[in-house]
């Protein structure tokens, strides 16, 4: 598209040049002709240049609203905070959000169109499953809504970061984030190089183990671990009987460190004496992967690498 515009613009001085040339051939003033020709060339070049810039650099949205806690966390990293006019109330809740302290004072919304519309945002971000009725309404009111899908693989995470950055105009920072993630992931791959793969379970709350088709599984694969849950044919999140877990004799048990406000019955599964007395190593990772993966993934990968290296 940009190239076509350039041709059009070149065509214009060319056309002028042709007509001017015809004219000047008729008259006998060569210097004025040359000057006029030069001027028209220059002006058209300048004109095309500015237009080009204008077309290739869209004005970045200055008023950004978001209905999704995970997108909020990314936005917090990527854009200057003055440009955020509304974030999800969950982002300000310490139970759900690691940046709750930092976003204190920011205007929050509860996913209601009424809260968003008066703020006149340039763009509204929402997650794949968020507030469908609110989004419908906002679109009807001719507001720009961008829906971002839930990242399901590591690749998805990078794509989402870059896509978001594209929409808000902060490509550099995003690229940094992506590079960091790639770096940690690459480091992870070097951990178990050449050695026999260790067997492991990723043990979540409520006795749930994490199987194939998840980010956790991907990380385990990269780290060269054998995911015993996947080997049992488990896909996604499934509850596994404690006796079966012990019988499978994993060498490593990966658990997530819960926030202090996590509900206890779920955590109780992890403190069962049978697990204490069993014969495997426990790797504790920062929590949040099943929540907002994008912001946590590099830390998780780094921690996993460090723990396994021991």
């Amino acid at each position, binding site marked *: 598209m940009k190239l076509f515009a350039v041709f059009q613009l070149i065509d214009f001085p060319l056309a002028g040049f042709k007509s001017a040339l015809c004219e000047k051939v008729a008259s006998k003033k060569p210097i004025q002709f040359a000057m006029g020709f030069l001027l028209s060339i220059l002006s058209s070049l300048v004109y095309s240049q500015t237009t080009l810039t204008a077309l290739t650099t869209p004005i970045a949205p200055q008023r950004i609203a978001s209905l999704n806690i995970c997108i909020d966390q990314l936005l917090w990293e990527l854009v200057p905070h003055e440009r955020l006019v509304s974030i999800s109330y969950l982002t300000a809740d310490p139970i759900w959000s690691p940046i709750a302290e930092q976003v204190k004072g920011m205007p929050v919304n509860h996913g209601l169109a009424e809260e968003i519309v008066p703020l006149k945002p340039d763009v509204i971000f929402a997650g794949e499953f968020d507030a469908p009725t609110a989004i419908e309404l906002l679109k009807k009111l001719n507001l720009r809504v961008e829906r971002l899908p839930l990242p399901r693989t590591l690749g998805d995470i990078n794509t989402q970061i870059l896509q978001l950055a594209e929409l808000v105009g902060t490509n550099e920072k995003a690229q940094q984030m992506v590079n960091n993630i790639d770096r940690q992931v690459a480091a992870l791959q070097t951990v178990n190089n050449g050695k026999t793969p260790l067997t492991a379970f990723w043990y979540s709350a409520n006795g749930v183990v994490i199987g194939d088709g998840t980010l956790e599984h991907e990380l385990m694969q990269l780290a060269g671990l054998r995911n015993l849950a996947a080997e049992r044919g488990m896909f996604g999140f499934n509850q596994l009987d404690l006796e079966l877990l012990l019988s499978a004799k994993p060498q490593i048990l990966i658990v997530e460190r819960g926030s202090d406000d996590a509900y206890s019955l*779920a955590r109780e599964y992890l403190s069962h004496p049978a697990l204490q007395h069993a014969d495997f190593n426990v790797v504790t990772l920062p929590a949040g992967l099943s929540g907002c993966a994008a912001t946590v993934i590099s830390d998780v990968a780094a921690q996993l690498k460090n723990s396994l290296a021991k």
Partner: protein
Amino acid sequence: MQTKISFTTLTCLLVLAIAIASVMALNTGLADIEVIKGLQDFLNGEQTLAANVVGQIRLPRLILALVIGATLGMSGAAMQGLLRNPLADPGVLGVSSGAAFGAICTLYFGVAASAWYWLPGAAIVGALFTLFMVYVLAGLHSSMLALILAGTAMSSIMVALIAVTLNFAPSLYAMQEIVFWLLGSLANRHFDHVSIALPLALIGWVMMLSRSRFLDALSLGEDSARSLGFNNHRERGILLLGISIAVGACVAVSGAIGFIGLVIPHLLRPFVGYRPGRLMLASALGGALLLVLADILVRQFDSARELKIGVVTSLIGAPFFLLLILKTRSRWA
């Protein structure tokens, strides 16, 4: 109507049945291990897989099934003896709802996370507080009817409060957790739970069993019992306190398991000559047996979705209760 069997014979039979059921229970579970070897290893302090599974998973679960079943059976017999009515169960007093509400509060406010004993502690406090409120509502020296009415009122209040916590549960996750806890389960309980339930249950048992003579005399009526030298109010208070402590401790550990206190005494009554005192001990044994068997049943099914033991007892108990009402109705008709 009465079955000719001596009390000693009945007791021996029940104990034998419990022993058999216990062996079956230790052999129930998804891990493929040698139970006897595992038990030996566990007692020797060795850390093999079998020792771990049998000693840390199956054994505490069995002990809890026995303790909780015995408590619920005995409490049911005690309540029915006290109220002189076969339709009573410990829930009538409201203490199981109170215990449940106490536990749910800790889940709701996230306090349960900080230390494992918060939830059981709150449940026991909930049970005792409910008993206290029942006495406040009915008066210290009130009739049994007044106590029942107050107990029903307190139970309704507690159930309503539980509904409130469900309504305002901070997340779907929390709500699910509360609901599942309410259904009652013995899965993944360990010796910490036993250390809560067992001592308190024992205290409750002693308090209840020592009132055997009073419950027997109560068959003649409140006035006759008093004239025979019993201090009715004191005996009743000790009995109710014993029930509250024991039931509170059990609900604290397992959630709400119902119908055992209703079904077991009713089944065993003909075998003890309808004597309320003896019925308490027999019901303890019967309740322990029933809960161990129910726990074995629960583990026969797919472990992905755990079948809650409270559901099993309800499925057995509700039709039984219906049958009971129909029988009683025909007797009065």
